[in-house]
């Protein structure tokens, strides 16, 4: 495992809120991150349908985006979200875990640009997509 990926993995796995939501780092490297979140009744947004709250999906996509930034070859030491725009395509199917795939597709000296897609078990139509801009703290 490269040092960049190792540092990124430590950064992600130390996030209390991500651990609280049960997020699992599935894959990481070269500005890409895949993170999953299990279905959990505590994260439901609409009790009538059992559909997960959009906010929980947003938290997952934000975490995956930050992870993608952290493992970019620019080797940032830290990152924070500047802005995130989330589009909700459809309700997540109750009972299914959500997988977010994020790609940091461009970085400048101090900003990283990311896009991310969240799917349940049906990969053909995403539950949500998001694009974001993140701060990029480079090593001194």
């Amino acid at each position, binding site marked *: 495992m490269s040092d960049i990926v190792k540092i990124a993995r430590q950064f992600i796995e*130390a*996030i*209390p*809120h*991500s651990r*609280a939501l049960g997020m699992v780092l599935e894959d990481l490297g070269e500005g890409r991150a895949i993170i999953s979140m299990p279905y959990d*009744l*505590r*994260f*439901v*947004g*609409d*009790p009538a349908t059992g559909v*997960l*709250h*959009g*906010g*929980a999906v*947003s*938290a*997952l*996509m*934000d*975490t995956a985006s*930050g992870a993608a930034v952290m493992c970019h070859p620019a080797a940032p030491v*830290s990152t*924070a*979200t*500047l*802005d*995130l*725009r*989330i*589009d*909700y395509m459809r*309700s997540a199917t109750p009972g299914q875990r959500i997988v977010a795939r994020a790609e940091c597709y461009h970085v400048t000296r101090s900003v990283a640009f990311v896009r991310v897609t969240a799917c349940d078990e049906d990969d053909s139509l995403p539950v949500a997509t998001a694009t974001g801009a993140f701060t990029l703290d480079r090593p001194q």
Partner: protein
Amino acid sequence: MKRPEPVQQVKDRRDAALRALVDGIPYVHYLGIRFDRRGDELTAVLPFDDKLIGNPGLPALHGGVTAAFLEVAAIIELAWASQWEGMESGAPQTHLPKTIDFTVDFLRTGLPRDAYARARVVRSGRRYASVHVEAWQDNHARLYAQGTGHFLMPAALGEPAE
């Protein structure tokens, strides 16, 4: 002339309608979000908790927590504002709008303290609504995040288009 409704009865009705809207949402309960009500004005409150941290080094609130907090504040305000007339005439609705998109602008680091948010329904039509929301911590004038979202109104809530 009809006597005015006793004030406690009015408060009880409105508080019950707000509870019916908020208390059934597991994720709102999980994050610990509650709503303060003054007349029809709602303030969402997110008490600080260790599980909300995103960067343990600083420490700072998780960006996803802030995004979720703003989205919750926006949805509840929209549902609340839309059902107000129905509630006052004794027929509250608890159908929630669905988020189409939501944009969050992270203005400052979320500190390990309580956060507050107020949302404003900018446009509410029969099918779609646009809501703006602002969040702060210690000082209302120093916002730490703001957001704008578009929502699909449930059939029962949307008002006729003008």
